[in-house]
């Protein structure tokens, strides 16, 4: 990323958070900021860049919000406009001081329980990082117009329902932090999650942007070990990105990846981040997931820890986060430690209606059946997994393995 883009990205969320914090109108804040940036592009080349560019942008954006207030005459718009007017009276920071960083409040707004769960990640990417709806839509595999409408609706809900730009009370904080972490992880793309079976490599992945959000969160909440855990998890996964495909674009599963293609510096950062989290002695789901990644990477690089330790970590994660993806990963880890049949027994326990359309389940089951020498059943399971796989490279890989059963 170029320095200018970095600066803009860093500023965008900060300024939107400031402009929207009283009126709660994210769309109006974004529009006003966009107008201010346009004005800057016209004025700065001629007049020179002002001493405090952010203050200049905020001042211009607030004038735009005031214009909007004067234009809105209807009763229905009055209440929102009064809030916008209140926005205009926020004191400027003293000369030389930076605006306070209100992005944490913005993250809590985007992940508020009143906001529909699947739109939280897109909302964060747009309001905190300034990503456009088309790019977000591509990553989430929905039409741009659909994503645009859903974002507009979510912002209207925030404004009209009165979602506060506030840090939640202590009693609600753990749950609310969890929602923020989950939304960031959703932005990262659970498709990258190769704890169980590598998922599809999504076009237009937002992994880098999600890592950016993760870094922002660890700066804003330095004492939250799960934020560090999430960052470590994302860094570990991202470090192996280029090893997931070979030169001809074919999918390479974790156990066969060229470890020299793994990014050592990123793995080291992930490990250091996870150590910082562990030192706080408050374990959680994301720290455990990162620890599993760390152990699996360690096992490939140095042969330690062994599969039994990795299986234990999966047990601990399962106890804390009993969800379907974790269950499948745990079954594979148990198979690695004690044999394919033991893993298959765990898969059998999962309720059929939960797993029927879940690709990782069928891919894992096919793999374990093949390892157990149950070729006929494995063949059928591979067929089911292939039918459920969206990613062409992964489909080819599964088809390869299915063919090998016949030889």
């Amino acid at each position, binding site marked *: 990323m170029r320095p200018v883009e970095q600066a803009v990205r860093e500023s965008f969320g900060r300024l939107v958070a400031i402009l929207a914090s009283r009126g709660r109108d994210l769309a109006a804040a974004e529009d006003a900021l966009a107008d201010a940036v346009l004005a800057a592009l016209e004025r700065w080349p001629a007049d020179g860049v002002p001493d405090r560019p952010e203050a200049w942008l905020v001042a211009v954006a607030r004038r735009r919000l005031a214009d909007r207030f004067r234009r809105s005459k209807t009763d229905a718009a*009055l209440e929102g406009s009064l809030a916008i007017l209140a926005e205009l009276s926020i004191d400027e920071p003293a000369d030389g001081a930076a605006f306070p960083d209100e992005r944490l409040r913005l993250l809590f707004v985007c992940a508020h329980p009143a906001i529909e769960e699947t739109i939280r990640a897109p909302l964060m990417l747009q309001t905190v990082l300034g990503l456009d709806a088309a790019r977000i839509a591509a990553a989430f595999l929905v039409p741009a117009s659909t994503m645009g409408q859903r974002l507009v609706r979510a912002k209207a809900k925030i404004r009209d329902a009165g979602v506060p730009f506030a840090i939640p009370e202590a009693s609600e904080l753990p749950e609310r932090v969890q929602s923020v972490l989950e939304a960031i992880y959703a932005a990262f793309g659970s498709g990258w999650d190769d704890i169980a079976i590598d998922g599809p490599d999504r076009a237009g992945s937002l992994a880098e942007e999600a890592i950016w959000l993760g870094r922002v969160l660890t700066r804003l909440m330095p004492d939250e070990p799960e934020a560090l855990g999430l960052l470590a998890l994302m860094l570990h996964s991202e470090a192996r990105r280029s090893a997931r495909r070979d030169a001809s674009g074919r999918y390479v599963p974790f156990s066969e990846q060229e470890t020299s293609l793994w990014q050592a510096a990123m793995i080291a950062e992930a490990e250091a981040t996870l150590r910082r989290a562990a030192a706080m002695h408050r374990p959680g789901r994301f720290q455990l997931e990162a620890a599993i990644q760390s152990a699996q990477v360690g096992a490939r690089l140095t042969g330690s820890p062994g599969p039994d330790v990795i299986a234990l970590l999966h047990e601990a994660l399962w106890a804390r986060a009993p969800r379907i993806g974790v269950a499948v990963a745990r079954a594979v880890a148990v198979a690695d430690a004690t044999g394919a049949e033991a893993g298959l027994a765990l898969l059998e326990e999962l309720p059929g209606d939960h797993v029927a359309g879940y690709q990782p389940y069928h891919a894992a089951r096919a793999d374990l059946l093949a390892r157990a020498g149950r070729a006929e059943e494995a063949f059928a399971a591979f067929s089911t997994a292939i039918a459920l796989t969206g990613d062409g490279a992964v489909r080819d890989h599964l088809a390869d393995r299915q063919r090998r059963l016949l030889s």
Partner: protein
Amino acid sequence: MQYAILFYETDKEFATRDHTEEGAAYWGAWRSYIDEISASGIVRGGAGLLGPETATTIRLADGRKHVQDGPFAAAKEQLAGFFLIEVPDIDAALAWAAKAPCAPIGVEVRPTLPGM
């Protein structure tokens, strides 16, 4: 901001209202909630409602009144009462909604249309 908090109950709770013994516990729980929310000074209006069997629904079609016995939508949970409250944001409204005796069934929180 002003919110309506809408309380929903099932046949069971509506029936309990007239019941001598269980009715006492039902009304006791509502009474202490109503006292608490009224004492907080946020209430702008509200009412408890008689059961859905007392509801009548009217629809105008082609200028003609179609009157029907029963509530607007046939559902297991029916509107049992509401408060109009004035609080700073949705978190405060949700906190009051969560305290209602019928919270295990469901309470809907909606901002009111401004300027009415």
